[in-house]
């Protein structure tokens, strides 16, 4: 059962998918598992749905693991999904959120890449799609969205780690989310979780033009980062992608924002131990705990500020 699962260890995709089923079994009236598509190598793309009822409620989207080697994100995703299920009915803010909104959570957003990190190359970042024109495999799924696609901050070279792919949404892992978001039509917050630069971003990455909601997003970020840092003192910076880190085109939250999802954010989780993508497993739970505090700020804000 989920109560005996080791959250302080890294797990394979099979273990994570099995754990998802256990979570659904443990909380049948709250959690369900839906399949939104298939990866390039035909692995199912699963999303956990947390819902207390109602049809097509406004919703919050969370995802982890789009860059497969960022293992701390999938691990944080597992802990967080469990926390959401456990805290409903206990934590007033989680209860308030789920009493009015649904939460969709994709824990392994890039399953082919993730499986590849376990079997062949721990440092794999991209998808595993074959590029017909090249011997190099994979597309950076965080450069493959239809937001400034192919512009500066993405590479046209299939051998690059930031290869944008042949066209926007060419990757089934990206297209599945695009279709889901469009079909749902009522997603109000979208949080995509990466590692490891200790940052919280809002759009844009592909242009230096500030988003119309910059002021509000900046204020939420400030509050979220303060909450996160309050637990272990982890030092976070926040701001728009282009001003805080670098120009990046075709990114996830630029597309979601342009779709009308105002509360679009991206995290870069911690590496206080300076291990990069090899963050020791003992840091999983502290990372998840501090991130949870920031996530609650964002989710609660979305819940309290309908638009």
């Amino acid at each position, binding site marked *: 059962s989920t109560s005996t699962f080791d959250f302080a260890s890294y797990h394979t995709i099979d273990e994570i998918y099995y754990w998802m089923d256990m979570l659904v079994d443990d909380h049948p009236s709250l959690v369900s598992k839906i399949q939104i598509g298939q990866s390039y190598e035909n692995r199912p793309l699963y999303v956990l749905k947390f819902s207390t009822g109602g049809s097509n409620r406004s919703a919050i989207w969370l995802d982890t693991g789009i860059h497969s080697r960022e293992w701390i994100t999938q691990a944080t995703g597992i802990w967080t999904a469990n926390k959401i299920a456990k805290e409903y009915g206990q934590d007033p803010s989680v209860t308030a959120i789920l009493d009015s909104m649904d939460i969709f959570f994709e824990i392994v957003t890039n399953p082919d890449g993730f499986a590849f990190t376990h079997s062949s190359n*721990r440092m794999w970042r991209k998808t595993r799609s074959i590029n017909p024109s090249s011997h190099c495999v994979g597309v950076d799924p965080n450069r493959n969205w239809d937001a400034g696609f192919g512009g500066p901050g993405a590479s046209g070279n299939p051998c690059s780690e930031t290869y944008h792919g042949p066209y926007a949404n060419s990757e089934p892992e990206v297209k599945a989310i695009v279709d889901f978001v469009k079909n749902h039509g009522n997603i109000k917050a979208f949080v995509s979780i990466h590692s490891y630069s200790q940052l919280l971003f809002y759009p844009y990455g592909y242009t230096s033009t500030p988003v119309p909601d910059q002021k509000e997003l900046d204020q939420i970020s400030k509050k979220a980062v303060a909450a996160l840092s309050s637990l272990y003192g982890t030092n976070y910076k926040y701001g728009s992608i282009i001003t805080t880190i670098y120009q990046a085109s075709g990114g996830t939250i630029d597309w979601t924002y342009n779709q009308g999802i105002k509360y679009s954010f991206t995290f870069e989780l911690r590496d206080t131990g300076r291990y990069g993508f090899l963050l020791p497993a003992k840091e999983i739970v502290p990372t998840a705990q501090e991130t949870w505090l920031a996530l609650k700020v964002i989710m609660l804000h979305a819940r309290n500020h309908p638009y």
Partner: protein
Amino acid sequence: EQLFVGDQVLRITASDEEQITLLRVLGEQAELQVDFWRHPTSPGQPADLRVPFPSLQAVKIFLESNSISYSIMIEDVQELLDEEKKTMTKSRRVER
């Protein structure tokens, strides 16, 4: 399975825009097969670069000859990977 024996991750701090440009040029040299874990962004901000063992000497000479300061963040990537694998195996063996 790809092994990373002897690969290092260097933490590099560029002091100005010129050095950042140099780091980007370094990253584009396909024959070195370097991998930016954290990209160079602005002066004073650290960038992390995984360098395969065969390219270590060339990369360090490049950095030193351009007066770009760096430290070794990970001495041997494979050692950490072995440690990670050991932890996962141990965790699976633990009775719950």
